[in-house]
């Protein structure tokens, strides 16, 4: 069996040509390598590649419509409880109603539907919310007046009785105004709700209930008024006037309240806004008084004012607060902090709460300063978050507004390793050490399957490699003057890598020496027949057969024996 010359040389040009072709194909794309990922092939005009999209499985209609119905039903029970004067339950209903409304507002922003028809419903609901909140507070206070009336009547305090009457008057007109506004909206609200398929019965019921509430409040106040005037007739010698300027105000405007005390007596004046004490002051010597009120945190809508001084009560004029639009800006100041400004036109909104939302959930509430600016840190996890600022406090006569969405990048905290870190780094080091150990073990390990077969494998590799270093190939011939036998040369050349092939060289040599015509094709039997009575030769041949065909394992001693016997046999022949 002859070895082919290593065919690497003729294939070298072919490989070179292939490399050139490959380089030619790659170079046009090398400037902008775009590795194919499924993300880069994620849609065509006809469809999206949904297998790479995040499967969010959102059923938002299933959340939105029931939420709208819940808002209606909680507003229904709210008005009912107000009507029944059960303010404890009504307060719970109010909280529920406000919470759900807020949830709905957030949802509209989150679904990016602020320009859609759904926004219309949201807007109407926000107005309803203001009306219902006023209704609750005013009716609650109105009910309290009844208790106060009895108290003051028993204490025989005509001044306080009159204040109760006036307050009741103020509340009555406010309640009436609120109910009119709530009622006036119901047609539009019902229309929009029906478009979405939302059940409106609780809502229309609440409108009816509100109307009957207003009527009952009117009756009650009428009764109270007559009763009080009967019990404590008004003072004839004193009176006090009041005037408001302007009649309509907005956030940031100044409302000028002025008037005059006619008659003698105390010059102390008390102003009541919406039946709550606004200002205590003293009139001038001519009886005139003046107070300027800045419109800040006061609800949109109608408000009432009256002045009183030592038993004299003024009329109850009303002024209207008109809602103004607002603008809210938000920016990221790095490191998870944000800042921004809340303005109403040019006027900064002071001391107002601004809620920061991320993915629809509130993460912080910041307060504006005197210039309308706010700043603060957000408690967010690492990474990028889209946040939005919202101002929707209905205690202000301001439109709710949302800022633009802003990307906030929270950098990884250095000390966030904590417990995880203590376990983490030793684990990683352990894994690396284990792989290092494994590699070293693998290198040192001797191929176990071969071990039992060749007992001297430990020594062989080094020697074989040394031999290879000395005899790299058939090109470098061993010293011929030492051996002079080409078959022996071939044997020594092959003995390192292919022992059976090496033995075969010796066999061919012996076959030739035995006189066979074609030694390369000779068989053991041929030699045996040729040399029938050479027991050593026969022994050699038998051993040869065992090695080549019987899978006999070779030991060092065996090799020496083969070589020695061969040399002996050749010497014999020679």
């Amino acid at each position: 069996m002859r070895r082919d010359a290593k065919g690497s040389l003729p294939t070298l040009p072919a490989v070179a040509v292939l490399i050139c072709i490959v380089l030619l194909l790659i170079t046009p794309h090398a400037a902008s390598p775009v590795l194919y990922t499924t993300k880069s092939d994620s849609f065509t005009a006809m469809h999206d590649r949904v297998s790479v999209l995040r499967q969010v499985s959102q059923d938002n209609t299933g959340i939105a419509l029931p939420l709208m119905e819940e808002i209606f039903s909680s507003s229904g029970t709210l008005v009912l409880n107000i009507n029944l004067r059960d303010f404890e339950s009504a307060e719970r209903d109010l909280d529920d109603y406000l919470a759900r409304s807020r949830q709905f507002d957030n949802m509209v922003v989150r679904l990016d539907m602020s320009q859609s028809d759904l926004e219309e419903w949201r807007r109407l609901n926000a107005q309803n919310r203001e009306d219902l909140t006023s209704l609750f507070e005013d009716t609650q206070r109105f009910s309290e007046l009844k208790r106060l009336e009895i108290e003051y009547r028993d204490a025989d305090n005509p001044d306080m009785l009159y204040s109760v009457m006036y307050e009741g008057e103020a509340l009555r007109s406010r309640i009436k105004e609120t109910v009119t506004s709530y009622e006036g909206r119901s047609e539009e609200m019902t229309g929009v709700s029906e478009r979405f398929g939302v059940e409106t019965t609780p809502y229309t019921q609440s409108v009816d209930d509100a109307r009957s509430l207003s009527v009952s409040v009117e009756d009650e106040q009428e009764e109270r008024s007559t009763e009080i005037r009967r019990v404590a007739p008004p003072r004839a010698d004193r009176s006090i006037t009041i005037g408001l300027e302007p009649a309509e105000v907005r956030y940031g405007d100044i409302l000028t309240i002025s008037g005059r005390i006619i008659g003698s007596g105390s010059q102390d004046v008390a102003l009541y806004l919406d039946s709550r004490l606004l200002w205590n002051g003293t009139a001038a010597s001519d009886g005139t008084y003046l107070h300027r009120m800045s419109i800040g945190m006061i609800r949109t809508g109608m408000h009432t004012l009256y002045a009183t001084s030592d038993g004299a009560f003024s009329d109850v004029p009303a002024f209207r607060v008109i809602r103004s639009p607002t603008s809210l800006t938000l920016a990221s100041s790095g490191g998870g902090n944000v800042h921004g400004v809340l303005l109403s036109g040019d006027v900064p909104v002071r001391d107002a709460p601004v809620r920061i939302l991320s993915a629809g959930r509130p993460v912080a509430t910041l307060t504006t300063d005197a210039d309308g600016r706010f700043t603060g840190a957000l408690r967010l996890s690492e990474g990028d978050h889209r946040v939005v600022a919202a101002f929707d406090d209905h205690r202000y006569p301001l439109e709710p507004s949302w800022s633009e969405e802003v990307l906030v990048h929270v950098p990884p905290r250095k000390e966030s390793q904590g417990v995880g870190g203590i376990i983490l780094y030793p684990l990683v080091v352990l894994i690396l050490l284990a792989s290092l150990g494994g590699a070293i073990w693998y290198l040192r390990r001797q191929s176990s399957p071969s071990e039992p077969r060749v007992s001297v494998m430990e020594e062989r590799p080094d020697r074989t490699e040394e031999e290879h270093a000395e005899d790299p190939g058939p090109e470098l011939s061993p010293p011929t003057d030492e051996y002079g036998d080409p078959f022996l040369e071939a044997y020594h050349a092959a003995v390192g890598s292919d022992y059976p092939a090496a033995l075969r060289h010796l066999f061919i040599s012996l076959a030739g020496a035995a006189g066979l015509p074609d030694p390369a094709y000779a068989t053991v039997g041929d030699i045996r027949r040729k040399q029938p009575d050479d027991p050593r030769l026969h022994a050699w041949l038998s051993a040869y057969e065992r090695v080549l065909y019987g899978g006999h394992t070779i030991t060092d001693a065996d090799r020496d024996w083969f070589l020695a016997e061969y040399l002996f046999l050749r010497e014999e022949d020679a």
Partner: protein
Amino acid sequence: MRISLLIAGLLILLTLGAMGAHLQATNAELSRFNPGWNGTAVFFSLAERNGAIVHSPGSSPVDHADRYLLIAPDGVGAEPIARGVLAGGGTVIIADEDGGANELLEVLGVEMRIIPGNVSSADMEFASPRTVRAQVSSNHSVLTGVETLVFNRPSFIEGGEPLVRTSVLSWIDHDGDGSPGSGETLGRYTLIASERIGAGDVILIADASLFASTMKQVRRLHDNPRLVTNLLDSDTVMVDAVYGRPADAEGPAYIVHTVKSAPISSIIVIFLLMMVVAFAFRRQIL
């Protein structure tokens, strides 16, 4: 030398295989030769496994099919076959989203029309409002066991009896910004409708992407697999691969397929293989 020959042979076989796979495939949308995510190769192999007959160019259509499925048809070529199916009381199912089926519908006397548009919904299955989730509002036989379906950039249908409609928070995204704005009214849009024509009925699906391979690659897609099974579940189902997008094949793919599907090709291939094996034995290579 034997071993190097073996290696060379292996490399050549691999190259031929790769070349063959490349030539047979195509990138055409919804093509049955497109094994990628936007092709219908998976659907067609499913159909064939379920016993449906694929009407491809070169084969003749089945006479008495009781269900005829057309995916994104173009032109009126399928009219005679469709008429035959309808006359026999069968169902013709057309899935189309770019309006190409409207010609065929008109010629068949159907009043339903596909209105191409970007139907989007707040009820999205994936992170895109155009992957619309819709509830089934009918108990048509084709929709048994189907409650929720996921659509992929559907259009909508006018006319017919609605079988599947979007929720009310859905809109046509004219300006392509993914959210409803002015001029984009919220409402319910019909995605699957049916109409009776003579003895049979026509079911129109406003989304051909239901049959694309990417919809099958998702593990849980509500009741979409059930819909496909229902569509293929009939005595004689014929799926069209001549008049619609599934027949699209650019370049060599078409030729390769026609050659491959001709019955004589397999005979020739087997013959060649036998020759090669005989040759190998002769020369004592094997």
